[in-house]
């Protein structure tokens, strides 16, 4: 599989603070790549480095098969549509005038601009001043700006920020349809929910480190859901010194993989604690995410 973005040991340090730490990103061609992490985990900083808006302290970046630095920026930028942190836009100009500014900077054709506006469905608001736009309309204009060059790669930083559920759904469908046309989309969010159903590959950041990269299924496999032990006598089990808390029907234990579970059951049986059942908690993807970022990221 060919990768549109690869980084090796990508690192950014501000003063003595390392905000992005040794990332080895692999973004496959034609996918929607969900770039997840809690606030302040380094998503925006990473994306700025991919666009050479910020210089890495260490590490290599290759985008569309070319090394990225401020010298290659003008060669790569015609192929990369981006939206970083908040939608840009000149408030005193209308949507149409904003698109005219972008068109002139990019040298896009009228057709490309018209199509970008059509894709984000902003047509009827084009003659309104951008300072009077709602946040959702600004996001749309920002995405239209990114699309106005027929990009091969889209780098979108929290494009669903501030949108209502219908707006989020619309952006989701839009990004999936763009990926279907072969455009690689990298999209960040601090909410797994938002990217869950659009991203086929996920990268999870915690405190500047890449703590997971892979498919949704691999993410599930990675995490170990809590164990529930059904027993009428939880006190006896607790007396054994197990790292357990009381849970529904008995005990709840964290971080027990399959081997540890077998050991646990053996121990309980050995001490003649009645075991009625052992099962795992069903986890939502969001919980898996919280689990990962909470455990390895923020703690």
């Amino acid at each position, binding site marked *: 599989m060919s990768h549109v973005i690869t980084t090796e040991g990508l690192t950014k340090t501000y003063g003595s603070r390392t905000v992005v730490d040794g990332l080895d990103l692999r973004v496959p061609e034609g996918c929607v790549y969900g770039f997840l992490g809690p606030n302040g985990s380094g998503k925006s900083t990473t994306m700025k480095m991919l666009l050479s808006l910020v210089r890495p302290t260490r590490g290599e970046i290759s985008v569309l098969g070319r090394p990225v630095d*401020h010298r290659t920026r003008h060669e790569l*930028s015609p192929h990369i549509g981006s939206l970083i942190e908040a939608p840009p836009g*000149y408030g005193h100009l209308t949507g149409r005038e904003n698109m005219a500014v972008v068109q002139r900077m990019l040298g896009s054709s009228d057709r490309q601009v018209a199509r970008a506006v059509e894709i984000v469905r902003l047509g009827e608001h084009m003659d309104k001043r951008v300072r009077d736009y709602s946040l959702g309309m600004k996001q749309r204009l920002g995405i239209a700006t990114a699309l106005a060059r027929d990009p091969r790669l889209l780098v979108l930083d929290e494009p669903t920020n501030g949108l209502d559920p219908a707006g989020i759904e619309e952006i989701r469908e839009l990004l999936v349809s763009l990926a279907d046309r072969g455009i690689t989309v990298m999209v960040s969010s601090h909410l797994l929910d938002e990217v869950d159903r659009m991203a086929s590959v996920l990268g999870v950041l915690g405190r500047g480190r890449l703590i997971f990269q892979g498919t949704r299924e691999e993410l599930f496999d990675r995490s170990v859901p809590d164990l529930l032990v059904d027993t009428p006598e939880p006190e006896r089990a607790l007396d054994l010194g197990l790292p357990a808390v009381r849970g529904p029907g008995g005990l709840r234990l964290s971080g027990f993989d399959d081997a540890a579970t077998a050991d646990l059951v053996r121990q309980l049986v050995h001490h003649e604690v009645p075991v009625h059942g052992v099962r795992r908690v069903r986890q939502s993807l969001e919980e898996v995410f919280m689990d990962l970022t909470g455990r390895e990221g923020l703690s």
Partner: protein
Amino acid sequence: MILAELVKLRRSALWLVALVLPVLTVTAGALNYAGNRSMLSSGWAPFWSQVVLFYGLLFLSMGVAVLASAAWRMEHRGHNWNLLMSTPIRPAAIVGAKIAALALVVAFMQLVLLVLVAVVGRLVLGLEGMPPWEQAAVAGLAVVAATPVIAVQSLLSMSIRSFAAPVALGLLGCVAGAGVLLGGGGGVLSHLVPQALVSSALFLGNTAVADSASLDPGAVGTIVAAAGALTAAVWALSAVLLARREMR
């Protein structure tokens, strides 16, 4: 890129500044002229000298400072820097287009000044005929002479997010420029301090300012050459700084 800058100027507050400043200038000049009728000989030349006195020393350069801050504020606001820097446009073109757009607004401001001088001179002060062509020539030359100030203020406002700080630095420049001119240091120095260059150009052929040169090809040529060299140097510096800039 210059086309993109022209779109950005639509409905922008810059035009208001370019309108208000000449109004203030000509009003002040006319009041001065009317108040000192006994001391001044009457006619277009004395009126003009009252108009350009403060305009040349302070108003034009400070106006440019405000215009430059307003022009770059559009980019500092929102996240337009990210947009600007993720296009194929080279830093030199980004900075050059900004300087050109500002020069256009300054040219408009000079035009307003000329029209106001003619209108106020005739209708309010009752002067005969029309202002001499030399005044139009000087006003036009001042646009050229002001490009180094434009370039310097543009560089400051590009680098500093604050609106007021570059304007304050511009005021310092005006003080230095006036010092160079009035201190009689003249010569090379008055062509190296951008604000002094503006004053020198506006005072050409002016009887009210003691050691101003006459409006001859030599003086004009020197001013144009100095303006060109200073602008090119500051432009190049801005482009280099922009290329190295990190986006926040």
